[in-house]
């Protein structure tokens, strides 16, 4: 794979705060995501991991009361800038959700649809096959491409969702607890798949599973509610995964990753 040919961008946030109405859910996040690496976001429930992740590709736009301050930069452009197109942002930054959410269409159409609306001009059959191979699903579904996606197992559906995301060839893939609805075997397959994918993509994953974070990620961001009682979450520590798990700087991180937290 000639990975170097692809002009890749990664994400950087500057003083990013995210609000739901008057409630500041996430405050002052400064991250520099390394390209073609897997970055995990961990932290207790409700600390704003999903909120932060969804801010990267502007999915929070669909919550009418929400807005951000600060910047999310990709290739030097602020994604909340005035002339930035959210549709194009989401094309460049794909997303895989916690629960598999395939479209009620055939397996083939699930992948072809996104490509088609984004103006794909190449050979569709080829793209579908490549994407399914990329998501390690091809062998299982190649004979049943016209079947409804709903007939797949949960794990297969999730890989289909990954396949349809890579079909639109984003630079970055966001995953919000992609394996939490899956059994251990399917989880393992998704994790293997992520290792494959990171050769071509930058991946940011939210997970509750410490082992998973330790296993798959290169970098880890630890989120926590702010101590001031405001109930806003923020990133309290961000470094290489190895360091977070073996030699954290913050006491709270240590407590959390060793399971002594709450």
């Amino acid at each position: 794979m000639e990975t170097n040919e692809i002009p890749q961008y990664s994400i950087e946030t500057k003083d990013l705060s995210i609000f739901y109405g008057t409630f500041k859910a996430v405050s002052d996040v400064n991250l520099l995501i390394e390209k073609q690496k897997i970055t995990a976001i961990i932290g207790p429930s409700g600390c704003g991991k999903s909120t932060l992740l969804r801010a990267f590709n502007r999915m929070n736009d669909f919550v009418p009361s929400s807005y951000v301050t600060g910047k999310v930069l990709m290739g030097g452009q602020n994604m909340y800038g005035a002339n930035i197109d959210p549709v194009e942002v989401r094309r460049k930054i794909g997303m895989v959700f916690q629960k598999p959410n395939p479209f009620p269409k055939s397996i083939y159409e699930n992948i072809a649809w996104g490509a088609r609306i984004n103006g794909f001009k190449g050979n569709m059959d080829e793209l579908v096959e490549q994407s399914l191979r990329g998501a390690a699903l091809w062998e299982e579904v190649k004979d049943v491409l016209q079947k409804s996606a709903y007939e797949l197992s949960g794990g297969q559906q999730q890989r289909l969702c990954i396949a349809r995301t890579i079909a639109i060839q984003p630079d970055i893939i966001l995953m919000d607890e992609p394996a939490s609805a899956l059994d251990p075997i399917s989880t393992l397959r998704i994790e293997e798949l992520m290792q494959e994918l990171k050769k071509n993509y930058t991946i940011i994953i939210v997970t509750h599973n410490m082992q998973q974070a330790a296993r798959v990620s290169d970098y880890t961001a630890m989120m926590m509610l702010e101590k001031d009682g405001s109930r806003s979450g923020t990133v309290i520590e961000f470094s290489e995964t190895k360091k977070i798990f073996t030699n954290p700087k913050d006491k709270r991180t240590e407590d959390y990753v060793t399971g002594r937290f709450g």
Partner: protein
Amino acid sequence: MNSNHNHYPEGESLRRALATRYRNASIGRVLFFSALVIAILSLVALLYNVIDGAFGYVAFEYKNDPTEFTSKPLDDLTKEELLAILKANLSSGAYTKLDNEKPMEKRSRSVLYTLLLERLIQIDTKQTWSLTDSIFRSGEIKAEVAQKYPEAKLEFRSWLTPVFLTTPMSSKAEFAGVRTAIFGSLWMVGIAILFALPIGTGAAIYLQEYANKNFLNRVIQTNINNLAGVPSIVYGMLGLAIFVRTLEPLTSGSIFGVTDANGRTILSAGLTMGILVLPLIIINAQEAIKAVPDSLRQAAFGVGATRWQAVWHHVLPNALPGILTGSILAVSRAIGETAPLIVVGASTFISLDPDGPFSKFTALPIQIYQWTTRAQPEFHSIAASAIIVLLVLLLTLNATAVLLRNRVQRRY
């Protein structure tokens, strides 16, 4: 995997493609919204159409010259003078009959004045104009009348007047009113609710609180949902065959000694309408009962209440506003229904107030139907007036329902 990368538009072509997609998006938005605009316009057109018909210029002639009866201008006549004129000029039989219906002395001036116009002077309507025409073409209309009907008087008239509400039917549009129709509608709806509310609430209680999920109960539930979709005219046919015909001795009142027996009575219509709104009441009551939180029942059972005690003391009082809201909606459905009444045999010409369940009757929508289908435009004007009466009635009912519903929502 990357061989496809160049198949996606980039740069200038990407910008063009995006522009097209956004244009489609906004076209779609406008198209979808215009459907709502059309719905709104239809509503506006309908209301405009009704109001347009209920007011406007009328050109009419007196058949008999007013000076034959009095030398004073008609508008200046007092009640006593009107009484004297009527007494002097009506045949004594006609006068006695009117006096028996309601003593002439007790009638208001405007009623007597109407009688004078109706019985003695008599009006011949030549032409009517819509409200729009009356406003924007009044000059032309005046010229036209002066030329076509030199004898005629031109008057701007509201067909909807207090007298219209309080006078009974008449074969002349100018003197017809909806009094008997309103009474007929009220009687009919009263009987329908008296029948359907207790039974419907009982059925809803049974289905929500008692029924387990066996086959029979599922059939009952499905059946109720289906009855709600049966065309209203089919209920009319049911009423015709059962209430009007088979149960004639009961519905005509002949077993209670009412003579002049015929099954086409208020009772038949009310029961037919009761059956028609029954599924509606059941379904609404079920919703209301469903909304009562389960914790309430648990609490009642927890202190040793029987099923019925829990229902009677806790579930029903809490569901009552919802059940009443449902009944009001059922009432407004029943008031507007026309087809079953036609089939069951509402009479159209009723000049006496109905005096009980065994009376012949007419109803507001029946009058509207009758008058709309008459050829003479003055009947369309009173049809429009009757529609306004009906719509105001429905609006009041629905506003009550909405208020009730809001009170319920505040409770939980």
